[in-house]
């Protein structure tokens, strides 16, 4: 990677420009995503194209500042048009975005095609704005991009609280008397700037990804808007640099699409691995819950088997235990192993019986089950043959304070719906006389 920088001094400029783009679009993209306006960036980027073409047509200049000024004007008009359609008609947001995107982009393509036939158009390389061409970045361009990014981020920092209010509860903001429409215009203008920053590097077509991917990835890792914005900016910048470096590693590797792929990679990792919101996390939690349910069911079965003679010293084989609920014997063996490691079961030859602590745990599960059944039957007037299945699920998840409350509500009952005894926590473990 360092040799890549040394061999190619131009890579510094490309990486810096891509980082600026990632930082700005990541931070501002958070608001687009949270306001469910992920596609606004797409419409704005496409709306910029006719601006680039018109700026070149009118001035004949191919300086980046001139072309970006045109892009800014066109995208901003497109943004205002979207807001105007939403306020003035009954059209929904997706329709408004679709209209603006296709009208502006169609116009842009017509202009682009017409301009191709003018003598100096080929050198201007207007078509690079379609898919981006980061390699063309020069120090002069960087100054323009840097100034735009700094201005956008400064306004974001100043009006952060207003943007948060807009994104979370616009109507409440209006009731407070805050000028919510003006705040929305300012935020949309910043989004336009973020989109413009990426036009030369990533291009019109892929720019929306840079607004969405870092923001969605950042949301996975934090529950605070401030941290989300910082993190999305950081991940965006990282994707920018990664894409720039990757494209320098081989010939004919396009920078823009690689930046987008890097951002998508970050997003994929975040969706999979983030704590609490990640897929792996969810899968792991589900697995842990299933295993807990199996363990508790087996404990409860062992308790019920010993209940008639109040004799829990007797051991039972895996096949017999599997027969109780019709489970595969292999699964029951695995569950038995988990229970033994927790010290709740002990082996007696090939058979198993509850230890003292296992009996306490089993009693807790059965107690939860029978209290819940009784609650459903008495308080919700459900027939006693309807309550078992529900209790089968609830027995594993009832928190102790709810159990205590149930016990109190039901008047510390001793007998359940089907006439069976409800075990209490401190009971003796010996067989009854």
């Amino acid at each position, binding site marked *: 990677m360092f040799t890549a920088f040394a061999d190619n001094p131009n890579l510094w400029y490309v990486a810096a420009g891509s980082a600026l783009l990632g930082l700005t679009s990541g931070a501002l993209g958070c608001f687009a995503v*949270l306001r469910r306006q992920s596609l606004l960036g797409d419409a704005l980027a496409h709306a910029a194209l006719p601006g680039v073409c018109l700026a070149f047509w009118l001035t004949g200049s191919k300086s980046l500042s001139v072309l970006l000024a045109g892009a800014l004007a066109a995208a901003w008009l497109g943004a205002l048009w979207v807001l105007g359609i939403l306020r003035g008609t*009954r059209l929904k947001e997706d329709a408004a975005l679709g209209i603006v995107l296709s009208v502006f982009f169609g116009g842009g393509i017509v202009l682009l095609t017409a301009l191709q036939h003018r003598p100096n158009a080929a050198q201007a390389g207007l078509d690079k704005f379609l898919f981006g061409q980061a390699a063309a970045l020069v120090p002069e361009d960087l100054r323009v991009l840097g100034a735009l990014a700094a201005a956008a981020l400064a306004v974001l920092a*100043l*009006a952060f*609280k*207003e943007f*948060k*209010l807009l*994104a*979370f*509860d616009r*109507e*409440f*903001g*209006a*009731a*407070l*008397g*805050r000028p919510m429409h003006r705040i929305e215009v300012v935020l949309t203008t910043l989004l336009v700037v973020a989109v413009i920053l990426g036009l030369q590097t990533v291009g019109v077509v892929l720019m929306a990804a840079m607004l969405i991917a870092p923001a969605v990835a950042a*949301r996975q890792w*934090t*529950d*605070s*808007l401030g941290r*989300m914005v910082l993190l999305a900016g950081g991940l965006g910048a990282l994707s920018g640099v990664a894409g720039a470096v990757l494209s320098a590693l081989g010939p004919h590797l396009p920078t823009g699409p690689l930046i987008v792929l890097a951002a998508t990679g970050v997003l994929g990792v975040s969706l999979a691995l983030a704590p609490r919101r990640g897929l792996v996390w969810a899968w792991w939690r589900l697995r842990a819950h299933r295993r807990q349910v199996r363990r508790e069911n087996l404990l409860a079965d062992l308790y019920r088997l010993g209940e008639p003679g109040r004799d829990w010293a007797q051991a039972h084989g895996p096949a017999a235990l599997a027969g109780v609920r019709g489970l595969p014997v292999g699964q029951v063996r695995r569950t038995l192993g988990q229970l033994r490691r927790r010290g709740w079961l002990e082996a007696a030859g090939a058979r198993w019986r509850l230890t003292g602590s296992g009996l306490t745990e089993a009693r807790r599960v059965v107690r939860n089950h029978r209290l819940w059944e009784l609650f459903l039957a008495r308080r919700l007037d459900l027939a006693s043959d309807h309550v078992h299945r529900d209790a089968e699920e609830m027995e594993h998840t009832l928190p102790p304070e709810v159990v205590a409350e149930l016990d109190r509500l039901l008047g510390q009952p001793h007998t359940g719906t089907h006439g069976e005894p409800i075990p209490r926590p401190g009971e003796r473990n010996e067989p009854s006389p």
Partner: protein
Amino acid sequence: MKPVPQMPAQTVAPPTATSGPTASPPAVEVHDLTVAYHTQPVLWDVDFALPPGRLVAVIGPNGAGKSTLLKAILGLVPLTAGWVEIFGRPPREQRARIGYVPQRESVDWDFPTDALDVVLMGLYGRLGWFRRPGRRERERALNALAQVGMAAFARRQIGQLSGGQQQRVFLARALVQDAALYFMDEPFAGVDAATERTIAGLLRELRSAGKTVVAVHHDLQTVREYFDWVVLLNLRLVAAGPVEQVFTPENLHTTYGGRLPVLTQAAETRLRRGTGSD
């Protein structure tokens, strides 16, 4: 929407005579209020005046325009006709004296923020542009959270709160506004018993502090228990006045178009037998 039987709206004048020799302006006065969404009328010719210091329930069937009435008074939806005054002045001049509790479903509770941060939003109007909430604001927000029994949840992400707890956060956000007049859109909707008790207690506290509360309410059983004025609405105003004068079976019949759901019928039977609420 079923047509509402033609019947002159029965309005009881605010008892300015009892509130002292210098007649204070009504907390809310609505005159000939009409709201339409894209030619679909939502509220027609609504007139009423609410005296200050009362707990007012706005009731009516689904689609009767209850939420729209609150939003029209707050200036959140454009009026097709009519005018609104808050303490004798246009609403836009009275923002600092108005607190608002929107419907809980109106926001995305997965938003990355915590309870304290949401309550702080109640102070944004006072802070204006660019100023961040500081320690004093945070203390006030924490106090408001404590007032609704949510102090322990200040730093909890709002999506991890129960429905009742979310509703209490919204109430705390309105309390921190320290308003004279509160508008609440279904504060009792879908909350647990503990939250319902908290909100009912809070309403009484607000009344003893001389505040006015106008709340959209959906549970006819508890109207007498929690409120002292009612506004009965079904596109048009059916009646507005003190509960004991206006919350009558006849008015309820008119409001609900004569076909009452079971719960409403039960409440009505209780009213007819004169047992009222317990």
